[in-house]
């Protein structure tokens, strides 16, 4: 089976380290650019308008701001919720949106421009990876288009999520592990890139066995030991910087009066589980349904393709990555399943589909060579391709059309503009907001941390609560947003502030309602 698949995939040519002919490389380059460009156009168009800015984006952005302004790794106490490399990268790219920005939109949305080069790099790396795994040029291009144009990708890759950076680095690691030169330096670099991936988003650790498998397959028997050790040391020593940082701050292990890395990890692992992925009604199941709502093609076809591709030696590592991420999500005692989890699987799903498409096309064109019938074969392949496109394209067109036209952030934009214009003396005003509009208000002159305050810090961060001896009476305004209203019972001070305040401005309606409320301290 393996040999059949691999011969059909035309993948037997990757062994020789012969340098690619210049014309071949040029064609590769042009194809890669040709498929990356439409992805970038669809992603960039209306990037500020859709999807709705999320609280997490605001958090990472605020932390990036903090890094950039030498305030440490976060505006509040950094409590090891995630390793910091992701927002350090956001900080390093933050000069980019300034070139395009306008005050028309909430800052968190404006900053999404930094994700465009990330997607561009992901697309190009995915193309190179596909080629190195033995996919034909057209199939590699198809993989990039599937990866970048799925409405699910378009939405998630626009957002300032750490997972997008982790994907970039893991793709780089895979590309390096599959290097045809099998150079020790490439394998060491692969370890460094994998380390960067895990330090960008710790969940990328799930893909590590797949990466090691690929490295094992692609390294030469005579130098494999050294390649694996080089990879392993580079990876371990890169990731070790994180606990070392905690150790140097004396925050490795829990203790009274300080946060700890141990505590951060324990929190993430012990986070109230969102239930089984496959039991309807649970949080995880709702997340799955929302993914399927945006695009079921990439997920369903990708999973099926991954199962098939396990049989192919060339694609086994990538298929394993898909199955590993799936297994972690559906395991019986699964913990909290975040909505961005799927981001890490997208390139592998796309690659498996593209590889399967190539196998099917080659089977259609070349199986049973004695039969002949060339035109009939081409017609059959063409017909199947048209049918597949006929099913997928309208669905994706609809999703992507929403992405490039919808204005989901209008109420945020207007709320921020209203605060800018109508709240006097920001330097001496205390306002409670969700993380998504935090940075805007910092730019407006509110004092970061204690003047403009992340709402949950008021109740959950003792260092912040300590600054407000009078509880909710110490606050001046509270901005009620969908995020802030999500879980009212767990945050008593926020709840009281909402109760003892009156609406002075209101934007949007229904669940998207944003209210600016003045707190009535005398009540």
């Amino acid at each position, binding site marked *: 089976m393996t040999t059949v698949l691999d011969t059909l995939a035309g993948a037997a040519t990757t062994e020789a380290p012969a340098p690619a002919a210049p014309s071949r490389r040029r064609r590769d380059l042009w194809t890669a650019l040709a498929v990356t460009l439409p992805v970038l156009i669809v992603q960039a168009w209306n990037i500020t308008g859709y999807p709705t800015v999320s609280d997490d984006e605001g958090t990472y952005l605020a932390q990036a701001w903090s890094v950039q302004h030498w305030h440490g790794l976060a505006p509040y106490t950094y409590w090891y919720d995630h390793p910091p490399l992701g927002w350090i990268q956001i900080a390093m790219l933050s000069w980019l949106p300034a070139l395009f920005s306008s005050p028309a939109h909430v800052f968190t949305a404006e900053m999404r421009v930094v994700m465009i080069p990330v997607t561009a790099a992901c697309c190009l790396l995915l193309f190179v990876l596909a080629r190195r795994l033995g996919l034909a040029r057209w199939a590699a291009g198809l993989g990039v288009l599937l990866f970048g144009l799925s409405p699910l990708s378009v939405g998630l890759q626009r957002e300032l999520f750490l997972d997008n950076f982790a994907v970039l680095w893991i793709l780089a690691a895979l590309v390096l592990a599959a290097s045809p030169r099998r150079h*020790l330096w490439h394998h060491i670099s692969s370890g460094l890139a994998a380390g960067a991936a895990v330090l960008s988003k710790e969940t990328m650790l799930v893909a590590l066995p797949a990466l090691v498998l690929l490295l094992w397959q692609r390294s030469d028997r005579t130098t494999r*030991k050294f390649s694996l*050790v080089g990879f392993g040391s580079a990876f371990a020593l890169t990731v070790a910087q994180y606990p070392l940082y905690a150790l*140097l701050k004396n925050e490795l292990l829990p203790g009274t009066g300080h946060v700890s890395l141990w505590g951060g990890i324990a929190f993430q692992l012990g986070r109230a589980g969102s239930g089984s992925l496959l039991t309807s009604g649970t949080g995880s199941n709702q997340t799955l349904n929302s993914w399927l709502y945006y695009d079921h093609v990439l997920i369903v076809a990708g999973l099926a393709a991954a199962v098939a591709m396990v049989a192919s030696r060339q694609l086994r590592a990538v298929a394993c990555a898909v199955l590993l991420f799936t297994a972690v999500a559906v395991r019986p005692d699964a913990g909290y399943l975040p909505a961005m989890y799927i981001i890490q699987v997208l390139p592998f799903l796309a690659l498996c589909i593209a590889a399967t498409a190539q196998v099917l096309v080659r089977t259609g064109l070349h199986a049973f060579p004695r039969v002949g019938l060339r035109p009939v074969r081409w017609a059959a392949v063409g017909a199947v391709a048209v049918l597949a496109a006929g099913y997928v394209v309208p669905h994706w067109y609809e999703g992507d059309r929403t992405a490039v036209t919808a204005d989901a952030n209008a109420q945020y934009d207007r709320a921020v503009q209203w605060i800018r214009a109508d709240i006097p003396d920001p330097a001496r005003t205390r306002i409670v907001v969700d993380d998504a509009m935090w940075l805007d208000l910092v730019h407006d002159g509110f004092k970061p941390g204690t003047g403009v305050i992340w709402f949950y810090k008021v109740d959950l961060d003792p260092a912040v609560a300590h600054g407000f001896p009078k509880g909710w009476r110490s606050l001046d305004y509270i901005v009620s947003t969908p995020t802030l209203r999500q879980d009212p019972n767990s945050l008593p001070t926020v709840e009281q502030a909402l109760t003892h305040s009156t609406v002075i401005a209101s934007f949007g309606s229904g669940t998207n309602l944003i209210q600016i409320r003045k707190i009535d301290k005398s009540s």
Partner: protein
Amino acid sequence: MVSSIFMLLVSATLFCMSALTLWWMLHAWRTPEILEGTRFVPSDGAHSLSFSLLVPARHEQEVLRHTIERLLETDYPDYEILVIVGHDDPETAEVAARLAEEHPEQVRVVTDTHAVKNKPKALNSALPHCRGRVVGVFDAEDHVHPDLLSHVDHAFRGDADVVQGGVQLINFHSSWYSLRNCLEYFFWFRSRLHLHASRGFIPLGGNTVFVRTEVLRQAGGWDEQCLAEDCDLGVRLSSQGAKVVVAYDSAMVTREETPDTLYGLLRQRTRWNQGFLQVYRKKDWKQLPTVRQRLLARWTLSTPFLQAFSGVVIPLDVALALFGHLRVSVALASFLPVVPTLATFAFEAVALHDFGLQYGLRVRPWHYVKLIVGGPFYQVVLAAAALRAVWREGRGQRGWELTRHVGAHLTEGA
């Protein structure tokens, strides 16, 4: 602020030093093609060259017979063995004379009459008597493979002036330091020397080295004042543009033993370091044509001292990072030099595994533990030898501290 900048600079320097050293150490394993290229090309059976094999022997009556008899098993038609003995060493001379009597066609004895003896003087005494077109050097305790000359003959095809074969210490089980000593040889001959050959600057080894007789005579033989005459010869020849071929084959290496005491190791290492220092100060390497080659020469010849320096400074650096109340970012940066150091340990462990496989030796888990735990202590020995070399050179003590051999590799090897 100043202390932070200082720490960052020191850390960056140390990081670059140990990363570069590690990278060069791993030269042979960079790609499968490079590894393949480090082997001897299989011999085609045509024997075109004649060899004169020099074996200087000083107070080596116990091992000399074994070595020469083993050399006489060499499967090659045209070679002679010149045993060099001192006029003040009747015991060794007697063994040598008897061997010459038993094998008049192949073994001759050359007597070194210098008042103060050392290896280069002994070798120079024999050079005028060499009849072969290629001179080869072996030590009196060496364990030479019978097919070596055929392979060397083949390696000389083309325009090679010098062929350096592999030398390997084998008795890794003898003591904690011999384990590390064996691995040092493994990295040096298996990997690093090939880098030097490809870059056109090479400090040659002390034995299993073959030079065309005319090239050697033109160069004036060995430097009698130098404590590392082998290194010096390599530097002089490569500075004059000689082409050097290095070949390593675990079946074909010359097997040796580590010094039998730690003090012996210290003395041997002091002599080499002092020799490197002398070669550095002779400045023959300044004739190397490119800047890169000269930099490599500078770096290689001062490696023992840089190693001693970093061996002392890295622990200080780490201690300061842990207890020096630095900014966390600075402290984090001062851990950078530890990264290549730890990676070196990992690569050493893997090399030990490879060493065991190639030589059919059983490496036990305990040996890996010894390797890692012994690392810092070995570093101390190396640093001490480097300091001792500087001290002796400064005091003008240039005497030859000979290493004693007990034949530990002879029972081990074969």
